[in-house]
């Protein structure tokens, strides 16, 4: 089924009775060429690019719940490339380029909105750091504009510029940054993958990984055994449990990250704004809700809900940055399980087991990576060799010291 303006009009006249499910609901086959564990954004995009870029025919995505029901549906939908470390900057730059073509690629409205991302700075030292970051972004071929205080005030007048503790000195503007509709990204990739013959199998939890002689042979699931020569693990916060089925211990700790949304308001916040003092970021959804988040709760958790101290801290940051937000009512909050690595950067790599591939460690930045992560993971699974853009996302980099420490805080859990 193709979507078009004409189709919407015609269905409207026919009472919308002609729409069919956007993808099939197949029973698992006994064998596939490639099995992807995890039906989130990364798993679905990997399946799509495996079929499209590499011509694989027999692919299955196994999802224990429903498609896009994990972190794909729990993030704050921000897309950007504000990275500067070798390994990260080229990868996220490529991802941003894929985002810009994604809707025509998938024939799906993912509501990608390049409304501009504004990173505030609050001291001379922080301005210097952002100038350096902006130059790195420009050298990478992306865009960055340094705004002084008055330039920023013209753009965003309602911030508390003269806050006694955190006065705003200016901002680094990333015009191509923005947001996308997170669910639609999962659905768009799902539909596009299904159209290329990928079996999307929901309510199918992987319970074991079959390994013989150092080679993966398939997986055990709640819907029976499935043979496969290639298995990719893309389960974000659950990476530790699935990797343990293959006898692996990962450099990953799963932490809870909360997010919040207010009642729907008239258009008020035109950009994505990130506070430079404390971890806080906010944008307004197309429905009108102010979507915002902060830091981790900073203890390991799989609860998908957070604790009140962090909620309080996030609200305090919001009030410090834009007191006007105090009039809005928070509608709901939720949590996602972040697969945190010691250096804050992801892993896309082979494992010690032939045919078993790992994609994890997205910390709290996985959403923007969705297209490039799938692109590079598909390359890795199809060819057995890492894609050039993901070559540094190695599983063994903590042992060898080849860290990608974007924040410069060190290689220890709980620092990112």
């Amino acid at each position, binding site marked *: 089924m193709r979507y078009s303006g004409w189709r919407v009009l015609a269905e409207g006249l026919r009472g919308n009775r002609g729409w069919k499910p956007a993808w099939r609901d197949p029973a698992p086959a006994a064998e596939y060429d490639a099995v992807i564990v995890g039906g989130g954004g990364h798993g679905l995009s990997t399946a799509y690019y495996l079929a499209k870029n590499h011509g694989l025919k027999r692919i299955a995505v196994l999802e224990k719940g429903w498609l896009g029901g994990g972190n794909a549906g729990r993030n704050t939908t921000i897309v950007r490339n504000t990275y500067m470390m070798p390994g990260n900057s080229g990868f996220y730059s490529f991802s941003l380029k894929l985002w810009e073509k994604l809707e025509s690629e998938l024939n799906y409205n993912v509501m990608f909105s390049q409304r501009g991302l504004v990173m505030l700075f609050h001291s001379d030292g922080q301005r210097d750091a952002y100038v350096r970051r902006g130059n790195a972004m420009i050298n990478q071929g992306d865009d960055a504009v340094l705004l002084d205080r008055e330039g920023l005030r013209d753009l965003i007048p309602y911030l508390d510029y003269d806050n006694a503790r955190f006065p705003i000195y200016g901002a680094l503007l990333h015009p191509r940054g923005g947001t996308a509709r997170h669910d639609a990204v999962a659905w768009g990739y799902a539909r596009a993958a299904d159209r290329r013959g990928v079996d999307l199998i929901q309510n199918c939890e992987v319970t074991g990984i079959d390994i013989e002689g150092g080679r993966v042979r398939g997986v055990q699931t709640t819907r029976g055994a499935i043979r496969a020569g290639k298995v990719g693990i893309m389960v974000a916060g659950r990476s530790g449990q699935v990797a343990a089925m293959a006898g692996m*211990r990962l450099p990953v700790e*799963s932490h809870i990250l909360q997010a919040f949304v207010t009642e729907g308001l008239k258009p008020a916040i035109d950009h994505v704004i990130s506070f430079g003092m404390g971890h806080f970021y906010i944008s307004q959804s197309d429905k009108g809700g102010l979507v915002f988040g902060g830091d981790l709760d900073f203890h390991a958790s799989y609860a998908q809900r957070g604790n*009140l101290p962090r909620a309080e801290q996030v609200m305090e940051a919001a009030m410090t940055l834009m007191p006007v937000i105090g009039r809005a009512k928070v509608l709901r909050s939720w949590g996602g399980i972040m697969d945190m690595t010691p250096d804050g950067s992801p892993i896309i790599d082979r494992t010690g087991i032939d045919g078993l591939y790992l994609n994890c460690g997205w910390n709290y930045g996985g959403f923007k990576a969705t297209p490039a992560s799938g692109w590079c993971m598909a390359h890795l699974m199809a060819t057995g060799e890492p894609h050039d853009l993901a070559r540094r996302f190695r599983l063994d980099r903590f042992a060898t010291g080849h860290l990608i420490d974007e924040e410069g805080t060190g290689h220890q859990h709980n620092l990112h």
Partner: protein
Amino acid sequence: MRLTCPLCGPRDRREYSCLGAEDYLNRPGAGAAPEAWDAYLHLRDNPAGRARDLWYHEGGCREWLLVTRSTVTHEVFAVELVAGRSGAAE
């Protein structure tokens, strides 16, 4: 979420900071292989369910605590002092 400090009694989450998994209690010896240091610093069981991790009561008695709790329900089963345990961190 509250933790019951053995010295201070039940206190709010805000008084504590969490360092991470109990792996930090098992520091390798000076001559240990690089793999042992990698495991100590980076590799984690990351359990969904019963877990043991290290907390610091920085807003209270400033003792290091070994907390046994569920990472799924946030239920706390036990809080012990690290001091006095064999192999306690220096």
